[in-house]
């Protein structure tokens, strides 16, 4: 097997692992924005649930308990966002920023008070983490040229949450484009007045959308601290919530294209790690920072309409006031 092929496989393998939380968070953002609520707070919800998952898993010793509490915490913040922006019609951006900043401080303060490890949570042992799963026959089939290594290295050997993240995408597509809830969701993001006139509650629909987003962000957070890593560290989401937001725009608010955008951004991230210090003949060393900056730069260029147009749901960002 050639080295180049194996390197490519390993980079793609890393891409899947890096993209998983992006996909989950971007799907959460998709529900929120499709319903007309801009969700800058993805980052904060992921960070809060990463902290919750790592704390509970460390104390209880079960990653599933951690995941459960992470989802509850994330949904709590989603409901706070809803309370501020749907019920009280507060500014959606301000509310999201508030959640991000609040969580950034709160996770450290609570971590310090509970675990006395400088804001970290205790390192998790293998029993309290989501470990990688070897799919059936991965070893036995590895001898098959091309397909064998692809199965063994790329498809097998991830933890359950990675499979869940990518399994969620077709489900999101089906819910958003093939169910009654999805139709109403899209309608409420485009023209809430029409939905209201049809006798449906705009407020309820938007709360439901945020709740679904809360669940997905909770899984994303738990993935970061209890599957991808083995403890909570300060600001460990490191802007992934914002990258997910960028992927959401880049994928034009459609589940499958959003997933592809997440994979692209994940690939750039994996590539940046692999190219660290590598000298490419004729070009020299590529500064990692340029590759790291690419997702943000690409999103800016797309938003500016230089490559296609990204048009958000029409009513997103606006609170709905029922006429009396």
């Amino acid at each position, binding site marked *: 097997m050639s080295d180049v092929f194996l390197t490519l496989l390993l980079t793609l393998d890393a891409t899947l692992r890096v993209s998983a939380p992006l996909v989950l968070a971007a799907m959460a953002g998709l529900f929120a924005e499709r319903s007309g609520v801009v969700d800058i707070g993805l980052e904060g919800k992921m960070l809060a649930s990463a902290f919750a998952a790592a704390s509970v898993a460390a104390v209880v010793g079960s990653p599933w308990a951690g995941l459960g509490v992470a989802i509850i915490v994330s949904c709590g913040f989603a409901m706070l966002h809803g309370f501020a922006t749907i019920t009280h*019609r507060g500014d959606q951006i*301000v509310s999201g920023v*508030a959640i991000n*900043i609040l969580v950034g401080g*709160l996770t450290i*303060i609570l971590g*310090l008070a509970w675990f006395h490890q400088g804001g970290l949570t205790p390192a998790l042992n293998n029993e309290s983490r989501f470990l990688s799963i070897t799919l059936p026959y991965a070893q036995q089939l590895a001898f098959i040229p091309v397909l064998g290594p692809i199965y063994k290295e790329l498809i097998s050997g991830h933890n359950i949450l990675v499979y869940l993240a990518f399994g969620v995408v077709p489900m999101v597509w089906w819910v958003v484009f093939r169910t009654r809830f999805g139709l109403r969701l899209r309608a409420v993001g485009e023209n809430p007045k029409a939905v209201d006139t049809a006798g449906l509650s705009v407020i309820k629909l938007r709360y439901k959308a945020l709740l679904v987003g809360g669940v997905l962000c909770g899984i994303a957070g738990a993935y970061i601290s209890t599957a991808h890593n083995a403890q909570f560290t300060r600001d460990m989401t490191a802007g992934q919530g914002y990258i997910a937001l960028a992927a959401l725009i880049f994928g034009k608010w459609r589940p499958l294209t959003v997933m592809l955008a997440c994979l692209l951004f994940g690939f750039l991230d994996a590539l940046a790690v692999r190219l660290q210090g590598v000298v490419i003949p004729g070009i020299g060393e590529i500064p990692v*920072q340029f590759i790291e900056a690419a997702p943000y*730069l690409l999103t*800016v260029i797309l938003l500016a309409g230089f490559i296609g147009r990204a048009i958000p749901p029409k009513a997103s960002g606006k609170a709905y006031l029922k006429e009396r």
Partner: protein
Amino acid sequence: MNRDTRITWINRLLLPLLNILTAFAATAVVFWLIDVNPIEAAQVLIYGAFGYKEGIGYTIYYTTNFIFTGLAVAVAFHAGLFNIGGEGQAYVGGLGAGLVILFLDPTLGAWVFIPASIIGALLFGGLWALIPAYLQAYRGSHIVITTIMFNFLAASLMVYLMVHVLREVGQMTPQSELFPTNAWMPFVHDVAAGFGYSIEASPLNLSVLLALLCAILVWFFLWQTRWGYAIRATGKNGTAAVYGGIKPKRIIIVAMCISGALAGLVSVNELVGYQHRLIMDFHLGYGFGGIAVALMGRNHPVGIIVAALLFGTLYQGGAELAFEMSGISRDIVVVMQGLVILFCGALEYMYRPWLIRSLAPVNKQEVLVGAAA
């Protein structure tokens, strides 16, 4: 008092006060959650910020940063824009100040260096806001998303420059060489010593005067000039402003450039005033803190100075708190910033319906008389 005056009082005084009190109460709940007595914590905090002379210097030093970013956010807010990119603008502003100082002839006097570094910070900070402003005005991209992206772009750019280009020769830490002493913004304790007063040494430098000057200039600009009027008109009602002959695209550009330039001045206080070299991450938290300061200060320079002083106090007092009490850190300030943004910003009108119902109920008699007339 008739109903209208009561409503004005509710909006202007009661509501903001109640919101701030709620944020304080929520902070107290956080203290209680981590088993720290809030009153005891407040005492330590205030002692750390004002109890000894060196502490006061630090408090005002931090306040200076918050005045700059608070003003930056407020100017954009008045134009109806949310500049969430203060972090990046402050960081790149530092690049401007640093480059100017490092490339000027080191034998030049302070009279050249200090104004030049201020102009460098203003220009680079403003430029970093100009691109998102242009994209919003002429290409229709959303300012919030682009400024967020520009925060990350700034971070990547600065890491690259600090590691590969500006790093001091022979040093492992990514920081530039020391600025020539002529380029240092004078410390307040040195200036005071020159006048024969003895003050404890602290990072407090003359940038604080620059911050106060900026507050006055922002007030004058927003409320006393034609451009300021145009900015406020656009922010209050964009459509009406257009009918009034105001060009919203220009307003976006002007407001954002001023906003970015003000954020860039953080670097004058941090780098030119104290660190005396270009370092990484000197700006962290001040850009976002500015949002809390502007919301709490109701976007008015006087309010911003007061709110900045509060956060400066918390910042310095928080360091004392972390030193005195185990199991707590300065991050409590970040928690409080978040709560202030939540209750003074996102949940600004939470109490309004209740306050109006209980303090200024609709008088049926008046309504009937009004309808008859």
